[in-house]
C-alpha cells in the first residue's frame, strides 16, 4: 500500500476483465491545480480503467510522478488506485484537489 496525496495504491490479485487499457499514463488530474498523478514516461507499466476506477499493471517497478508530491515507486504487480473521499452528511464525496 502506497500513498501519494489523495491517491492510495492498493495491491490487488487481479485487474477486472472488463478493464480497458489506456493509451496515456495520467492516473488523476487535479481540477483546481491541473496537477497530475502520472506514470513516469519510461515506466514499464500500463494504466487500466474499469467502472471509473483506475488500475495499474506494473511489469517492473513503476514510478508515479506528481508536480508537488514526491515520487512513489510501486513494486511489480497489479494495483488498484483509490481516491480519497470526504465525508458529508449527504454521503461521501471525492476529494477535489
Amino acid at each position: 500500500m502506497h500513498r501519494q496525496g489523495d491517491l492510495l495504491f492498493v495491491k490487488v490479485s487481479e485487474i477486472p476483465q472488463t478493464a480497458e487499457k489506456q493509451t496515456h499514463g495520467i492516473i488523476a488530474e487535479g481540477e483546481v491545480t491541473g496537477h497530475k498523478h502520472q506514470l513516469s514516461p519510461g515506466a514499464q507499466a500500463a494504466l487500466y480503467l474499469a467502472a471509473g476506477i483506475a488500475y495499474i499493471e506494473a511489469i517492473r517497478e513503476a514510478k508515479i510522478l506528481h508536480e508537488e508530491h514526491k515520487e512513489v515507486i510501486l513494486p511489480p504487480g497489479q494495483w488498484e488506485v483509490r481516491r480519497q473521499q470526504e465525508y458529508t452528511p449527504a454521503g461521501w464525496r471525492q476529494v477535489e484537489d
Partner: protein
Amino acid sequence: MIKSLTKEQEAKLPEFRDKWLKIGLATGPVNRKAAEEAIDLIYKVGGLEPPKIKIWLRSPLEGCIGAAILNQVWDQVRSQVKDQVRNQVWGQVRDQVGNQVENQVRNQVEDQVRNQVVGQVWDQVEDQVWEQVREQVLSQVWDQVGSQVGTQVWGQVVGQARNQVIGQVRRQVKDQVYKCGYGAHDANWLGFYDFFSSPDLLEKTTKPLKPMQDLAHNCGWWWPFEGAVILTEHPISITRDEEFRLHHDSKMALEYPDGWGIWAWHGIRVPKEIITEPEKITYDDILDEQNVEMRRIKLERYGLPRYLKNVGAREVARDERGVLLHTDRMNEWPGEDRDGARYVLVQDSSTDRQYALRVAPYVQTPSEGIAQTFGLTEKQYQPIQEA
C-alpha cells in the same frame, strides 16, 4: 548508438537545465525580428511557405482569441469572452492585419488547413527528431538527460507556468489552447534535444529543431496558419515561492503586458480577492467551500487559529497522523448531522501544507478518520510509503 555520457557531457547537464529554465521563465520584451526569422525557418523546415502575415498579441489569452477569430469560430467564442477583452483584441488584429487582408485570411484559413499545417510542422520536425534521437541513444542515457534536463524543466516551466496558463485560459476560451506551439513554454523538450545538439552527440539529427529553439527565446505561445502566424509576448513578470511554484501575496504571480495573468497562492490559481482582500474572507466562506484545495487556501489566508476559534472547534484526539477536531456550530443547518461535524487536520507529507478533511461524526481518532477517507479501517490503512 550513444551508450553512455562522458564525465564532461554529464557535467553539462545542469548547465542545460539552467539555460532552459531561464528561457522557459523569461520575462520582458522579446526581440520580434528574431522571432519572426525563426518562424520563417520553422515553416521552411516543415516544407511550407513562410507566413506573410505575422500578428503579435500580448498574452496567451489574446492569442487564443486571435486564433479563434482567424478560425472563424468567432460566434462560439463571443459568448465566452467579455466584450471589453474581445473588442481590444479584435481592434488589434484589425489594426495589424487590415480589413482586406483579414478577409483574405478568413477565407483561406479553415480548421482543416490549420490542422494540416500544425500536423505537418510537427511530423516533420518533432516526431522525426524524437525517433531518431531515441534510436541513437541508449535508454539509460535518455533517462539521465530526461531526469536532469527534461523533468526538472518540465516541473517548473510546464508544471507551473504553462499548465497554470492553460488552466486559466481554458476557463475563458476553450478551443485554442491545445492548437498552438508554446514557444518558451516548450522549454522542457526543446532543452532535452538541445543537450544532444552538441557536435560530439547528435548535432545533425537535432538540427531541424534549431529554429524552434531560437523561437523559444523570443516568443510565447504561437499559432501557425497557412500564410499567417499569431505570435505572443513573454510575461512582464513571474514570481514564485521558494519551491518554484507561482506565488505572490499581493499581485499577479504571472502577468502579461495586456494585464491578463494569474493570481496564485503557492502554485494554486485563486480568484483575485483571495490575494488582494484576504481580510474579507469569512469563516462561512471556508466552511462552504467544496473544493479542499481552495478551502485550505482560504483557511491559510484567514488564519488557522482564528478559524478554529471562530467555529468553536475543540480538539478531540491527536495522534501521529493529525488532529481530530469537533464543532457543533453547524448543527442547526439544514441537512446537517445533529452530532456536529468532525475534521481531521493533517499535514501533507510532501508539501507540509495543512489540510482539513471532514470525517464522519463517530470517528474517534485522526488515524481512523484518514483510513476512512480511503474506505478502509484504521487497521487496514498501513501505507508503507506516503508522499
